[in-house]
Protein backbone atom coordinates (compact mmCIF):
# COMPACT_ATOMS: atom_id res chain seq x y z
CA UNK A 1 0.00 0.00 0.00
CA UNK A 2 1.27 3.47 -0.86
CA UNK A 3 2.18 5.56 2.22
CA UNK A 4 -0.32 8.30 1.34
CA UNK A 5 -3.16 5.78 1.03
CA UNK A 6 -2.19 4.16 4.30
CA UNK A 7 -2.14 7.54 6.02
CA UNK A 8 -5.51 8.45 4.56
CA UNK A 9 -6.98 5.11 5.69
CA UNK A 10 -5.69 5.72 9.23
CA UNK A 11 -7.10 9.25 9.14
CA UNK A 12 -10.55 7.97 8.08
CA UNK A 13 -10.46 5.23 10.76
CA UNK A 14 -9.51 7.72 13.48
CA UNK A 15 -12.32 10.16 12.58
CA UNK A 16 -14.84 7.33 12.17
CA UNK A 17 -13.94 6.27 15.73
CA UNK A 18 -14.32 9.88 16.95
CA UNK A 19 -17.75 10.21 15.31
CA UNK A 20 -18.78 6.81 16.68
CA UNK A 21 -17.81 7.72 20.25
CA UNK A 22 -19.24 11.25 20.05
CA UNK A 23 -22.61 10.43 18.49
CA UNK A 24 -23.40 6.73 18.71
CA UNK A 25 -21.82 5.36 21.87
CA UNK A 26 -24.52 6.50 24.37
CA UNK A 27 -23.28 5.97 27.94
CA UNK A 28 -19.96 4.44 26.81
CA UNK A 29 -18.89 8.03 26.05
CA UNK A 30 -18.79 8.79 29.79
CA UNK A 31 -16.77 5.65 30.52
CA UNK A 32 -14.41 6.49 27.64
CA UNK A 33 -13.94 9.97 29.11
CA UNK A 34 -12.26 8.40 32.17
CA UNK A 35 -9.67 6.51 30.08
CA UNK A 36 -6.21 7.78 29.10
CA UNK A 37 -7.15 7.40 25.43
CA UNK A 38 -9.64 10.25 25.77
CA UNK A 39 -6.65 12.62 25.91
CA UNK A 40 -5.96 11.81 22.27
CA UNK A 41 -9.43 11.12 20.89
CA UNK A 42 -12.11 13.83 21.31
CA UNK A 43 -15.32 12.29 22.63
CA UNK A 44 -17.68 15.12 21.73
CA UNK A 45 -18.30 18.52 23.24
CA UNK A 46 -21.62 18.62 25.06
CA UNK A 47 -21.01 21.99 26.68
CA UNK A 48 -23.80 21.72 29.20
CA UNK A 49 -25.25 25.20 28.98
CA UNK A 50 -26.87 26.28 31.18
CA UNK A 51 -24.80 24.35 33.73
CA UNK A 52 -27.16 25.37 36.50
CA UNK A 53 -30.48 27.10 37.10
CA UNK A 54 -29.39 28.25 40.52
CA UNK A 55 -27.75 31.52 41.52
CA UNK A 56 -25.28 31.51 44.39
CA UNK A 57 -23.70 33.79 46.91
CA UNK A 58 -21.29 33.09 49.75
CA UNK A 59 -21.40 35.09 52.94
CA UNK A 60 -18.30 35.44 55.14
CA UNK A 61 -18.92 36.64 58.69
CA UNK A 62 -15.68 37.42 60.54
CA UNK A 63 -15.49 37.19 64.35
CA UNK A 64 -13.06 38.69 66.87
CA UNK A 65 -13.39 37.80 70.59
CA UNK A 66 -16.74 36.21 69.85
CA UNK A 67 -18.15 39.37 68.22
CA UNK A 68 -19.08 39.61 64.55
CA UNK A 69 -17.36 42.67 63.07
CA UNK A 70 -17.40 42.25 59.28
CA UNK A 71 -19.63 40.48 56.76
CA UNK A 72 -18.60 40.08 53.15
CA UNK A 73 -20.59 38.80 50.18
CA UNK A 74 -18.50 37.04 47.54
CA UNK A 75 -20.76 38.36 44.78
CA UNK A 76 -20.20 41.94 45.96
CA UNK A 77 -16.47 41.32 46.25
CA UNK A 78 -16.21 39.97 42.68
CA UNK A 79 -18.41 42.76 41.29
CA UNK A 80 -16.12 45.31 42.95
CA UNK A 81 -13.09 43.55 41.44
CA UNK A 82 -14.68 43.92 37.98
CA UNK A 83 -15.28 47.62 38.59
CA UNK A 84 -11.56 48.17 39.27
CA UNK A 85 -10.91 48.22 35.53
CA UNK A 86 -9.20 46.32 32.76
CA UNK A 87 -5.98 45.66 34.70
CA UNK A 88 -8.00 43.62 37.17
CA UNK A 89 -9.83 41.49 34.61
CA UNK A 90 -7.54 38.47 34.93
CA UNK A 91 -7.39 38.63 38.71
CA UNK A 92 -11.20 38.79 38.95
CA UNK A 93 -11.58 35.98 36.43
CA UNK A 94 -9.13 33.71 38.32
CA UNK A 95 -10.81 34.40 41.68
CA UNK A 96 -14.22 33.74 40.16
CA UNK A 97 -13.01 30.46 38.63
CA UNK A 98 -11.31 29.18 41.80
CA UNK A 99 -13.76 30.34 44.48
CA UNK A 100 -17.13 30.84 42.81
CA UNK A 101 -17.77 29.12 39.48
CA UNK A 102 -17.41 25.57 40.84
CA UNK A 103 -20.22 26.09 43.36
CA UNK A 104 -22.75 24.63 40.94
CA UNK A 105 -21.04 21.23 41.49
CA UNK A 106 -21.57 21.53 45.24
CA UNK A 107 -25.17 22.51 44.55
CA UNK A 108 -25.72 19.52 42.25
CA UNK A 109 -24.45 17.25 45.04
CA UNK A 110 -26.79 19.05 47.44
CA UNK A 111 -29.74 18.56 45.09
CA UNK A 112 -28.97 14.80 44.89
CA UNK A 113 -28.68 14.68 48.68
CA UNK A 114 -31.94 16.62 49.03
CA UNK A 115 -33.67 14.26 46.60
CA UNK A 116 -32.40 11.19 48.49
CA UNK A 117 -33.64 12.72 51.76
CA UNK A 118 -36.96 13.54 50.10
CA UNK A 119 -37.25 9.94 48.93
CA UNK A 120 -36.05 8.76 52.36
CA UNK A 121 -33.48 6.68 50.52
CA UNK A 122 -30.29 7.70 52.35
CA UNK A 123 -29.48 8.65 55.89
CA UNK A 124 -26.00 10.01 55.08
CA UNK A 125 -25.44 13.68 55.93
CA UNK A 126 -24.23 16.24 53.39
CA UNK A 127 -20.82 16.76 55.05
CA UNK A 128 -19.94 13.07 54.79
CA UNK A 129 -20.86 13.13 51.08
CA UNK A 130 -18.42 16.05 50.60
CA UNK A 131 -15.60 14.32 52.46
CA UNK A 132 -15.87 11.26 50.18
CA UNK A 133 -15.61 13.30 46.96
CA UNK A 134 -12.26 14.83 45.93
CA UNK A 135 -13.82 17.59 43.81
CA UNK A 136 -16.40 18.63 46.43
CA UNK A 137 -13.70 18.58 49.09
CA UNK A 138 -11.59 20.94 46.96
CA UNK A 139 -14.54 23.30 46.45
CA UNK A 140 -15.18 23.57 50.18
CA UNK A 141 -11.46 24.01 50.91
CA UNK A 142 -11.39 26.89 48.43
CA UNK A 143 -14.38 28.48 50.17
CA UNK A 144 -12.18 28.59 53.27
CA UNK A 145 -9.14 29.72 51.27
CA UNK A 146 -11.06 32.76 50.05
CA UNK A 147 -11.53 33.90 53.67
CA UNK A 148 -7.75 33.75 54.17
CA UNK A 149 -7.11 35.61 50.91
CA UNK A 150 -9.64 38.31 51.83
CA UNK A 151 -8.06 38.70 55.25
CA UNK A 152 -4.57 39.03 53.73
CA UNK A 153 -5.72 41.52 51.08
CA UNK A 154 -7.45 43.69 53.68
CA UNK A 155 -4.89 43.23 56.49
CA UNK A 156 -7.11 42.71 59.52
CA UNK A 157 -7.11 40.19 62.31
CA UNK A 158 -9.95 37.84 63.10
CA UNK A 159 -10.38 34.77 65.28
CA UNK A 160 -12.74 32.90 63.02
CA UNK A 161 -15.05 33.14 60.07
CA UNK A 162 -18.50 31.68 59.49
CA UNK A 163 -19.03 30.71 55.83
CA UNK A 164 -22.56 30.28 54.44
CA UNK A 165 -23.32 29.28 50.85
CA UNK A 166 -26.71 30.49 49.66
CA UNK A 167 -28.71 29.16 46.76
CA UNK A 168 -31.55 30.80 44.92
CA UNK A 169 -33.25 29.18 41.90
CA UNK A 170 -33.35 31.48 38.87
CA UNK A 171 -36.71 33.06 38.12
CA UNK A 172 -37.69 33.41 34.46
CA UNK A 173 -39.02 36.99 34.13
CA UNK A 174 -41.52 36.00 31.43
CA UNK A 175 -42.60 32.77 33.16
CA UNK A 176 -42.09 33.20 36.94
CA UNK A 177 -44.10 30.05 37.70
CA UNK A 178 -41.66 27.82 35.79
CA UNK A 179 -40.63 24.93 38.04
CA UNK A 180 -39.20 22.49 35.51
CA UNK A 181 -36.11 21.54 37.49
CA UNK A 182 -35.32 19.94 40.83
CA UNK A 183 -33.58 23.15 41.96
CA UNK A 184 -37.03 24.72 42.55
CA UNK A 185 -37.99 21.89 44.90
CA UNK A 186 -34.68 22.18 46.75
CA UNK A 187 -35.65 25.81 47.34
CA UNK A 188 -33.98 29.03 48.40
CA UNK A 189 -31.63 29.43 51.35
CA UNK A 190 -28.31 28.39 52.88
CA UNK A 191 -27.35 24.88 51.79
CA UNK A 192 -23.81 24.62 53.09
CA UNK A 193 -22.20 26.12 56.18
CA UNK A 194 -18.75 25.78 57.66
CA UNK A 195 -16.54 27.58 60.15
CA UNK A 196 -12.83 28.31 59.94
CA UNK A 197 -10.58 29.07 62.87
CA UNK A 198 -8.22 31.73 61.53
CA UNK A 199 -5.95 31.72 64.61
CA UNK A 200 -4.76 28.20 63.80
CA UNK A 201 -3.88 29.13 60.22
Amino acid at each position, binding site marked *: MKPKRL*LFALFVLYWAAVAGIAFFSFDFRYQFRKTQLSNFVPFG*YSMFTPMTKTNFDVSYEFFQDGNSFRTVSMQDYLNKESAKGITNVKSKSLKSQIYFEQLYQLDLAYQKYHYAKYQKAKKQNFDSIIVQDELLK*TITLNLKNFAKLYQTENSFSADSVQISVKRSPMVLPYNPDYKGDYTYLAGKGIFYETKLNLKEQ
Partner: protein
Amino acid sequence: MVDFWQKSRTIYPSVFRFLVGIVFLLDLIFTLSNSFVFNTDFADYPNMGSTIEFLRENYISFYLIYGLVLVLFILGIGKKIVSAAVFIFHFLSIMIVPSLTNWGDTIMKFTLLYFIFVDSFKYLSVNPTHSDSRNLKLYISKLAVWSIILNLFLVYLSNSVYKLFDVDWQNGYATFFSFSQFLGVKSSFFYPIISNEFLSKAISYIIVAQQMTFLPLIIWKRTRYFAILLGVLIHLIMFFQFGLWKFETIMILLYGFLLNDEEWKNLIPKNLKNKLFQSS
Protein backbone atom coordinates in the same frame (compact mmCIF):
# COMPACT_ATOMS: atom_id res chain seq x y z
CA MET B 1 -17.76 20.17 -1.00
CA VAL B 2 -14.67 18.47 -2.46
CA ASP B 3 -13.37 21.93 -3.28
CA PHE B 4 -13.48 22.91 0.44
CA TRP B 5 -11.19 20.04 1.42
CA GLN B 6 -8.88 20.05 -1.59
CA LYS B 7 -7.78 23.70 -1.62
CA SER B 8 -4.42 24.24 0.02
CA ARG B 9 -4.11 25.84 3.45
CA THR B 10 -0.49 26.85 4.00
CA ILE B 11 -0.84 30.53 4.97
CA TYR B 12 -3.13 30.35 7.99
CA PRO B 13 -1.23 27.68 9.99
CA SER B 14 1.68 30.14 10.29
CA VAL B 15 -0.67 32.97 11.35
CA PHE B 16 -2.38 30.65 13.84
CA ARG B 17 0.96 29.53 15.36
CA PHE B 18 2.01 33.15 15.78
CA LEU B 19 -1.32 34.40 17.23
CA VAL B 20 -2.13 31.45 19.46
CA GLY B 21 1.43 31.57 20.82
CA ILE B 22 0.87 35.22 21.80
CA VAL B 23 -2.54 34.44 23.37
CA PHE B 24 -0.99 31.63 25.46
CA LEU B 25 2.02 33.74 26.44
CA LEU B 26 -0.17 36.66 27.57
CA ASP B 27 -2.40 34.29 29.52
CA LEU B 28 0.64 32.73 31.16
CA ILE B 29 2.07 36.13 32.18
CA PHE B 30 -1.25 37.34 33.62
CA THR B 31 -1.85 34.06 35.45
CA LEU B 32 1.67 34.05 36.94
CA SER B 33 1.25 37.66 38.10
CA ASN B 34 -1.62 36.46 40.32
CA SER B 35 0.48 34.40 42.71
CA PHE B 36 -2.49 33.37 44.91
CA VAL B 37 -3.40 30.85 42.17
CA PHE B 38 -0.35 28.76 43.09
CA ASN B 39 -0.18 29.53 46.81
CA THR B 40 -1.37 26.47 48.74
CA ASP B 41 -2.68 28.76 51.51
CA PHE B 42 -5.13 30.33 49.07
CA ALA B 43 -5.96 27.72 46.44
CA ASP B 44 -6.54 23.96 46.48
CA TYR B 45 -6.83 21.64 43.50
CA PRO B 46 -7.78 17.96 43.26
CA ASN B 47 -4.92 15.49 43.66
CA MET B 48 -3.67 14.50 40.19
CA GLY B 49 -0.74 12.28 41.15
CA SER B 50 2.85 12.83 42.23
CA THR B 51 4.13 14.31 38.93
CA ILE B 52 1.50 17.05 38.92
CA GLU B 53 2.07 17.70 42.64
CA PHE B 54 5.80 18.13 41.90
CA LEU B 55 5.01 20.59 39.08
CA ARG B 56 2.63 22.51 41.38
CA GLU B 57 5.41 22.85 43.94
CA ASN B 58 7.82 24.03 41.26
CA TYR B 59 5.36 26.09 39.26
CA ILE B 60 7.73 29.02 38.66
CA SER B 61 10.31 26.83 36.89
CA PHE B 62 7.54 25.04 34.96
CA TYR B 63 5.94 28.24 33.70
CA LEU B 64 9.28 29.88 32.90
CA ILE B 65 10.22 26.93 30.68
CA TYR B 66 6.69 26.97 29.18
CA GLY B 67 7.07 30.70 28.46
CA LEU B 68 10.41 30.08 26.75
CA VAL B 69 8.88 27.27 24.65
CA LEU B 70 6.06 29.62 23.64
CA VAL B 71 8.57 32.28 22.52
CA LEU B 72 10.33 29.66 20.34
CA PHE B 73 6.90 28.58 19.02
CA ILE B 74 5.94 32.16 18.10
CA LEU B 75 9.25 32.65 16.28
CA GLY B 76 9.01 29.29 14.54
CA ILE B 77 12.27 28.02 16.05
CA GLY B 78 12.59 24.29 16.74
CA LYS B 79 9.79 23.46 14.32
CA LYS B 80 7.65 20.41 15.16
CA ILE B 81 9.64 19.50 18.30
CA VAL B 82 8.61 22.84 19.80
CA SER B 83 5.02 22.34 18.57
CA ALA B 84 5.01 18.98 20.41
CA ALA B 85 6.45 20.69 23.52
CA VAL B 86 3.65 23.30 23.44
CA PHE B 87 1.08 20.48 23.36
CA ILE B 88 2.75 18.74 26.33
CA PHE B 89 3.03 21.95 28.38
CA HIS B 90 -0.59 22.87 27.60
CA PHE B 91 -1.69 19.37 28.59
CA LEU B 92 0.22 19.55 31.90
CA SER B 93 -0.96 23.07 32.70
CA ILE B 94 -4.57 21.88 32.41
CA MET B 95 -3.83 19.31 35.12
CA ILE B 96 -1.89 21.73 37.34
CA VAL B 97 -4.80 24.18 37.66
CA PRO B 98 -7.92 22.22 36.62
CA SER B 99 -10.33 24.83 38.06
CA LEU B 100 -9.01 27.33 35.52
CA THR B 101 -9.68 25.03 32.57
CA ASN B 102 -12.57 25.77 30.25
CA TRP B 103 -13.86 24.27 27.00
CA GLY B 104 -11.43 26.46 25.06
CA ASP B 105 -8.53 24.62 26.71
CA THR B 106 -10.04 21.22 25.86
CA ILE B 107 -10.61 22.22 22.23
CA MET B 108 -7.05 23.58 22.13
CA LYS B 109 -5.66 20.36 23.62
CA PHE B 110 -6.80 18.42 20.55
CA THR B 111 -5.98 21.28 18.17
CA LEU B 112 -2.41 21.42 19.49
CA LEU B 113 -2.15 17.63 19.24
CA TYR B 114 -3.00 17.79 15.51
CA PHE B 115 -0.95 20.96 15.09
CA ILE B 116 2.25 19.01 15.92
CA PHE B 117 1.98 17.52 12.42
CA VAL B 118 1.16 20.80 10.64
CA ASP B 119 3.84 22.59 8.67
CA SER B 120 3.28 26.06 10.12
CA PHE B 121 6.76 27.38 9.42
CA LYS B 122 6.41 28.53 5.82
CA TYR B 123 5.64 32.10 6.89
CA LEU B 124 6.23 34.26 9.99
CA SER B 125 9.13 32.02 10.94
CA VAL B 126 12.79 32.78 11.68
CA ASN B 127 13.81 29.86 9.49
CA PRO B 128 11.02 29.25 6.91
CA THR B 129 10.44 25.79 5.43
CA HIS B 130 10.51 25.17 1.69
CA SER B 131 8.57 21.96 1.19
CA ASP B 132 7.78 20.28 -2.10
CA SER B 133 4.02 19.88 -2.70
CA ARG B 134 4.54 16.17 -3.49
CA ASN B 135 6.29 15.66 -0.18
CA LEU B 136 4.80 13.08 2.25
CA LYS B 137 5.34 15.50 5.16
CA LEU B 138 3.13 18.01 3.37
CA TYR B 139 0.43 15.38 2.98
CA ILE B 140 0.60 14.66 6.73
CA SER B 141 0.32 18.40 7.32
CA LYS B 142 -2.78 18.50 5.12
CA LEU B 143 -4.41 15.66 7.08
CA ALA B 144 -3.55 17.43 10.34
CA VAL B 145 -5.21 20.67 9.14
CA TRP B 146 -8.28 18.62 8.14
CA SER B 147 -8.29 17.15 11.65
CA ILE B 148 -8.29 20.64 13.19
CA ILE B 149 -11.25 21.57 10.96
CA LEU B 150 -13.08 18.31 11.77
CA ASN B 151 -12.51 18.92 15.47
CA LEU B 152 -14.10 22.38 15.08
CA PHE B 153 -17.05 20.84 13.23
CA LEU B 154 -17.35 18.27 16.03
CA VAL B 155 -17.63 21.11 18.56
CA TYR B 156 -20.62 22.56 16.71
CA LEU B 157 -22.26 19.28 15.76
CA SER B 158 -22.08 17.65 19.18
CA ASN B 159 -23.30 20.85 20.82
CA SER B 160 -26.24 21.17 18.48
CA VAL B 161 -27.20 17.50 19.03
CA TYR B 162 -27.03 18.03 22.82
CA LYS B 163 -29.14 21.21 22.55
CA LEU B 164 -31.76 19.52 20.35
CA PHE B 165 -32.47 16.99 23.10
CA ASP B 166 -32.27 19.43 26.01
CA VAL B 167 -35.61 20.61 27.33
CA ASP B 168 -34.41 24.17 28.13
CA TRP B 169 -33.21 24.68 24.57
CA GLN B 170 -36.44 23.15 23.22
CA ASN B 171 -38.50 25.57 25.34
CA GLY B 172 -36.24 28.48 24.45
CA TYR B 173 -35.39 29.15 28.13
CA ALA B 174 -31.70 28.29 27.85
CA THR B 175 -30.53 31.75 26.78
CA PHE B 176 -31.93 33.38 29.91
CA PHE B 177 -30.51 30.68 32.21
CA SER B 178 -27.11 30.69 30.47
CA PHE B 179 -26.72 34.46 30.79
CA SER B 180 -28.01 34.40 34.38
CA GLN B 181 -25.18 32.08 35.49
CA PHE B 182 -22.80 35.02 35.25
CA LEU B 183 -22.37 37.71 37.88
CA GLY B 184 -23.66 41.20 37.20
CA VAL B 185 -26.08 40.06 34.49
CA LYS B 186 -28.90 42.29 35.79
CA SER B 187 -26.85 45.42 35.09
CA SER B 188 -25.88 44.16 31.65
CA PHE B 189 -27.01 45.66 28.33
CA PHE B 190 -28.39 42.20 27.41
CA TYR B 191 -30.64 41.77 30.46
CA PRO B 192 -33.70 43.56 28.95
CA ILE B 193 -33.22 41.49 25.78
CA ILE B 194 -32.98 38.09 27.49
CA SER B 195 -35.87 39.02 29.81
CA ASN B 196 -38.15 39.49 26.83
CA GLU B 197 -39.87 36.20 25.98
CA PHE B 198 -39.89 36.63 22.22
CA LEU B 199 -36.29 37.87 21.93
CA SER B 200 -34.92 35.35 24.43
CA LYS B 201 -36.57 32.40 22.67
CA ALA B 202 -35.57 33.74 19.24
CA ILE B 203 -31.91 33.92 20.36
CA SER B 204 -32.09 30.35 21.70
CA TYR B 205 -33.44 28.98 18.42
CA ILE B 206 -31.00 31.05 16.31
CA ILE B 207 -28.07 29.63 18.32
CA VAL B 208 -29.30 26.03 17.84
CA ALA B 209 -29.85 26.70 14.12
CA GLN B 210 -26.41 28.33 13.80
CA GLN B 211 -24.70 25.33 15.42
CA MET B 212 -26.71 22.78 13.40
CA THR B 213 -26.05 24.46 10.07
CA PHE B 214 -22.45 25.49 10.75
CA LEU B 215 -20.91 22.59 8.82
CA PRO B 216 -22.96 22.88 5.58
CA LEU B 217 -22.83 26.69 5.62
CA ILE B 218 -19.03 26.59 5.91
CA ILE B 219 -18.55 23.96 3.23
CA TRP B 220 -20.80 25.80 0.78
CA LYS B 221 -18.65 28.57 -0.64
CA ARG B 222 -21.48 31.11 -1.02
CA THR B 223 -22.39 31.06 2.68
CA ARG B 224 -18.90 30.56 4.12
CA TYR B 225 -18.16 34.20 4.97
CA PHE B 226 -21.66 34.69 6.39
CA ALA B 227 -21.28 31.63 8.67
CA ILE B 228 -17.85 32.79 9.84
CA LEU B 229 -19.02 36.36 10.50
CA LEU B 230 -22.08 35.13 12.41
CA GLY B 231 -19.88 32.83 14.52
CA VAL B 232 -17.38 35.64 15.19
CA LEU B 233 -20.24 37.97 16.22
CA ILE B 234 -21.64 35.41 18.69
CA HIS B 235 -18.18 34.83 20.17
CA LEU B 236 -17.50 38.57 20.44
CA ILE B 237 -20.78 39.05 22.34
CA MET B 238 -19.76 36.27 24.76
CA PHE B 239 -16.24 37.75 24.96
CA PHE B 240 -17.56 41.08 26.28
CA GLN B 241 -20.57 39.79 28.21
CA PHE B 242 -19.04 36.82 30.00
CA GLY B 243 -15.37 37.86 30.04
CA LEU B 244 -14.37 34.48 28.57
CA TRP B 245 -11.61 36.18 26.61
CA LYS B 246 -9.32 33.16 26.13
CA PHE B 247 -12.05 30.74 25.05
CA GLU B 248 -13.65 33.20 22.62
CA THR B 249 -10.28 34.26 21.15
CA ILE B 250 -9.35 30.62 20.59
CA MET B 251 -12.66 29.93 18.82
CA ILE B 252 -12.27 32.99 16.59
CA LEU B 253 -8.67 32.00 15.78
CA LEU B 254 -9.80 28.47 14.84
CA TYR B 255 -12.18 29.93 12.24
CA GLY B 256 -9.11 30.97 10.24
CA PHE B 257 -8.57 27.33 9.20
CA LEU B 258 -11.90 27.40 7.39
CA LEU B 259 -10.52 29.70 4.70
CA ASN B 260 -8.05 28.47 2.10
CA ASP B 261 -4.93 30.23 0.77
CA GLU B 262 -6.79 31.93 -2.10
CA GLU B 263 -9.38 33.33 0.28
CA TRP B 264 -6.71 34.54 2.70
CA LYS B 265 -4.77 36.19 -0.16
CA ASN B 266 -7.92 38.16 -1.02
CA LEU B 267 -8.34 39.27 2.58
CA ILE B 268 -4.75 40.20 3.48
CA PRO B 269 -3.79 43.78 2.49
CA LYS B 270 -1.41 43.87 -0.50
CA ASN B 271 1.57 45.46 1.27
CA LEU B 272 1.32 42.98 4.16
CA LYS B 273 0.97 40.12 1.67
CA ASN B 274 4.12 41.18 -0.18
CA LYS B 275 6.03 41.61 3.05
CA LEU B 276 5.04 38.53 5.03
CA PHE B 277 3.29 36.00 2.80
CA GLN B 278 5.32 35.82 -0.40
CA SER B 279 5.51 32.21 -1.63
CA SER B 280 8.89 30.68 -1.02
